[in-house]
């Protein structure tokens, strides 16, 4: 029996910061100190506090070390494991009190979180099914196949109020019920692990940190709808998640939790992986199904829905990773418990990838109904560098931005839509006063134009045209007419696009037009970007009091816009200036003002 365990975060973020090396060094030190029988090093999934990674947590005393490096391993072993003395320099420091915090449950980042989908991430070794089982893993599956009929199990999922976490928020139990009602000689359970939103890593963390939760949930789903085959469509850009899933599937098979006659019943279920090939659009369920069938990953008109006509035209239930991650808990703790969390129409929790201009960047899981203010200022620790909050983009390229006036909005599916955004899959990018909202809209549109499959006219051509207008505006060549045209295009695309990608692609544009119209007007009328992001609109002037007349700027100006005598203040001719910014970079005296 180990006296202590060192849990090292093995999520992709911390691995990129050499957490695998930390594991190696810790093991080396344990060996050197002869402690290999007393302490064990375990690689776990994502702890969520990515800003402060790599994370090493020592249990059972729950010491939470942050920003650990491989060179720190020896000290941790020699001091903490051997002598019981915490390494204080590696402890988290509360930015307000400046006091060290040892246990994560006292940290602002964690206090309001409620980790249900992420319940095992950071606690177990995802490559060891025994640890999953030790934490009630597969008990839900056992309960379902032994004690419940498919309809009873479906009713429990319905009762819980779980809604899809992929973005659309469709009631999960209802989807399972509809699929269960179609008769066929073969049905499928599909897990959508394509997670294409830029900056989103909720599903990745679940798959890397707790792959068995998905396997168990898919098996439960298979039992409920009458499917014997499961397919996980996972993006090829997640090699670690793929590896961990493969290991978990094999271990589950070895234990008879997948395959023929699971747990001695006549329910058989097995699953395989299918890989994406770098297309955001294949996160759309019908495009996903086409891709799995070996066809071009393009969506098709719905209805019919996959529940009726899905993979190879068979009834198929498609759910997102996070949706599945919630399923076992509904059976373990009961649907009443689950529905006691959250708001009236949005039950349970939501995992968000909190990023952008925020102090505590990372992965959080909060009950529905928490306010934006709590997320940003309590969990997120406020805006970085003390800047002013401007907006939060939720839902990635399909979402919109929430502003100061929404700070006290309780986060749930419907309230976000009412505010002109959407939950989406959980990306939450925080913006401050230095962000240009027009550029943000342009950024998301660039992504969409790159990822559009090209099947339908509004998305293929319409988004390109919207992007051209935004580029024109950011070049300082926009007109007020362009803004009207932009809005009409956005509304028509929203109204006519064939699939969710196209239908939601105008959201960032519309949302920023609604909430930050003055910024658009400034770009168009004043030809200015007050956030100083749009280079082409940057207004360069020389401060005559500071200018030494060294002529470096004039000599480097590619268009000869700067004039002046030696040792006399120089002058930039605004009509010739092309806003390239070379003078600004060359000036050694900070004599050039950028506006």
């Amino acid at each position: 029996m180990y006296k202590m365990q060192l849990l090292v975060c093995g999520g992709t973020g911390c691995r990129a910061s050499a957490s695998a090396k930390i594991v190696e060094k810790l093991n080396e030190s344990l060996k050197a100190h002869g402690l290999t029988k007393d302490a064990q090093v375990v690689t776990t999934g994502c702890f969520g506090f990515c800003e402060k990674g790599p994370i090493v947590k020592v249990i059972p005393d729950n010491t939470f070390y942050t920003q650990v490096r491989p060179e720190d391993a020896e000290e941790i072993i020699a001091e903490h494991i051997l002598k019981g003395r915490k390494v204080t320099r590696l402890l988290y420091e509360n930015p307000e009190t400046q006091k060290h915090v040892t246990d994560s449950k006292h940290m602002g980042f964690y206090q309001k979180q409620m980790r249900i989908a992420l319940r095992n991430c950071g606690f177990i070794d995802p490559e060891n099914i025994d640890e999953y089982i030790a934490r009630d893993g597969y008990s839900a599956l056992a309960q379902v196949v032994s004690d419940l009929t498919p309809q009873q199990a479906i009713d429990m999922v319905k009762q819980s109020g779980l809604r899809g976490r992929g973005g659309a928020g469709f009631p999960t139990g209802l989807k399972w019920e509809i699929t269960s009602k179609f008769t066929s000689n073969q049905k499928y359970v599909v897990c959508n692990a394509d997670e294409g939103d830029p900056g989103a890593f909720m599903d990745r963390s679940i798959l890397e940190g707790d792959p068995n939760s998905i396997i168990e949930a898919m098996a439960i789903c298979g039992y409920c709808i009458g499917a014997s085959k499961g397919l996980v469509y996972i993006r090829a850009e997640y090699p670690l998640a793929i590896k961990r899933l493969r290991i978990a599937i094999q271990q589950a098979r070895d234990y008879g939790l997948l395959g023929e006659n699971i747990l001695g019943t006549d329910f058989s279920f097995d699953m395989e992986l299918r890989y994406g090939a770098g297309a955001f659009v294949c996160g759309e369920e019908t495009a996903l199904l086409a891709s799995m069938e070996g066809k071009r990953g393009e969506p098709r008109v719905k209805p019919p829905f996959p529940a009726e006509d899905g993979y190879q035209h068979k009834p198929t239930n498609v759910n997102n990773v996070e949706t599945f991650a919630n399923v076992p808990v509904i059976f373990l703790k009961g649907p009443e418990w689950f529905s006691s969390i959250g708001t009236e129409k949005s039950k349970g929790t939501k995992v968000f990838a909190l990023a952008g201009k925020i102090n505590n960047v990372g992965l959080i899981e909060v009950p529905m109904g928490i306010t934006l203010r709590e997320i940003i200022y309590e969990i997120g620790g406020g805006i970085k560098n003390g800047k002013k909050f401007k907006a939060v983009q939720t839902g990635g390229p399909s979402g919109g931005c929430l502003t100061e006036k929404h700070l006290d909005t309780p986060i749930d599916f419907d309230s976000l839509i009412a505010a002109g955004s959407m939950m989406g899959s959980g990306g939450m990018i925080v913006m401050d006063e230095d962000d240009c909202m027009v550029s943000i809209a342009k950024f998301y549109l660039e992504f969409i134009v790159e990822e559009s499959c090209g099947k339908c006219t509004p998305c293929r051509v319409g988004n390109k045209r919207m992007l051209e207008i935004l580029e024109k505006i950011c070049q300082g060549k926009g007109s007020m007419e362009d803004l009207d045209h932009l809005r009409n295009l956005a509304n028509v695309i929203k109204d006519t696009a064939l699939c969710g990608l196209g239908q939601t692609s105008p959201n960032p544009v519309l949302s920023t037009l609604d909430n930050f119209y003055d910024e658009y007007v400034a770009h168009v009328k004043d030809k200015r970007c007050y956030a100083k992001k749009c280079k082409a609109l940057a207004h360069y002037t020389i401060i005559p009091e500071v200018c030494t007349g060294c002529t470096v700027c004039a000599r480097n100006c590619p268009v000869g816009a700067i004039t002046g005598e030696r040792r006399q203040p120089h002058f930039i001719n605004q009509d010739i200036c092309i806003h390239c910014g070379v003078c600004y970079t060359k000036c050694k005296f900070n004599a050039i003002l950028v506006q």
Partner: protein
Amino acid sequence: METVKLTIDNKHIEVPKGTTILQAAKQAGINIPTLCYMNLPHLDQEHKPGSCRVCVVEIPGRRTLVPACATKCTEGMEVLSHSLRAINARRTVVELLLSDHPKDCLVCPSSGNCELQKLSITMGIREINSVENAAISTYRKDASPSLLRNMDKCVMCRSCETVCNEIQTVGALSAVNRGFMAVVAPAFEQDLTDSPCTFCGQCVAVCPTGALTAVDNTFHVIRALADPTKYVVVQTAPAVRAALGEEFGYQPGTLVTGKMVAALRALGFNKVFDTDFAADLTIMEEGTELLDRITRHLNGDKSVHLPILTSCCPAWVNFFETNYPDMLDVPSTARSPQQMFGSIAKTHMANKLGVKRENMVVVSVMPCLAKKYECQREEFKVDGNPDVDYAITTRELAHLIKIGNIDFKSLKDEDYDRPMGESTGASVIFGVTGGVIEAAIRTAYEVFTGKKLEKVEFHELRGMEGIRTATINFDGTDIHIGIAHTLGNARKLLDGIRKGMYNFHAIEIMACPGGCIGGGGQPLHRGTDIVLKARMEAIYKEDFNKPIRKSHENPEIIKLYEEFLGKPLSEKSHKLLHTHYFSHPKQ
């Protein structure tokens, strides 16, 4: 039959369950515009990707507009096809399409026949809102002997993809690239000539814009006609006379043979001959070959290959060479009528006329795009001089006639020149599916049985079903016939033969739906079967009205053998009128 009741634009209608809004609207006299929608009922194919978004309609209460072509009617549905929301959306969608399209309508081969142009006209679009130098998705031009690809004009309707993959099962075209630069192209973005393309031209027949067009040889023909050193001879395929009239406003199915001959003469062709003559010749050669194989087979010769496959369709030959290279000695070795004509014209006929081979220009008027490819195949040339110089389509002939300032409708009927303008009813029906084999049977029966055929019509060989089978009794011997049209059906038959599933003696294959009358060079009908059926009826009518209806009774054919060829399958016939096949190492 279960029905649903709904309202469209406040009209109450009742339709069978499963009807789409588009179909229901049509019933109610409401024409919702479409672009990517294509219905091919005779081929059991309804192409409705719902991707152009032109047919979007409003259903109050729904979050978005819905495509009428792909949305089924439900009980109590309320549809508004021209609400402000729907009109604004439709107009914006068409504007978007126009903004991503070359603006060279005035010189585009599809001008006047373009579905996108029609939409712009119907919707009264007068300006296209896009930024200066707005991007247009471009793609390199691709030319082949038969058709041209100008993908700048592709609207991604995917109709060509459907006909090429689902109906023809050739698989030369599919969507490549993503987003704005998405385009339809062969696999690995090869040129068409390197792909499995058979040049059947069905893609051209269904393309709504000028993205896929036929190669145009009109001006080659004009130059030949104007060249005083050239003796220009023209041959006309059977299917042309049943469709040419459509280019001049006649109803589909109007026979315009006499006017066509008159027009050709007025254009200045030295001789106006008929491909039908060569079709009779084909029957002589192929019929003899068929009987030869059948007789040997009935006598127990195991080495003989049955069934014999007709070989007059070059797209079919191409398909065969690409997909069934292991069966190259199964088809008939007879050349197609077009090629047999050219071969005889530049040898025997040229001699008779006192014209040197190099001064004779043979032009063929075909319903077909593959014929353009066929006439430039190396084996159909003598010392580099092709037997047929130019193959032009029915559409090109119509242009020629218009360029010649000829008022087609007012022409008086004229007759073909002799001898190569003499033809029988059997040759005319070459233009429809089942016709070639029926013509062959008319001759084969009499030669095999030695008896006279009382009734020459074989209705069991006629019709529009994709695959048809029949057994003809040759005075005690049962001869099994298989017929397929469209290459998809050809594939089914061929796969079966490869597996040894069938006991056919002869099979007729035509690549185009309905046979040549549905060829890629015919007046565009964009898929309706009404036009095909009308043309088919016209062909059978022409046959019915001919005095001689069996190929072997054509007096000029009899004379040709006496004077020149000797007998069918003679050495001379083999040299001039037969060919062999090549396996194509295509991707």
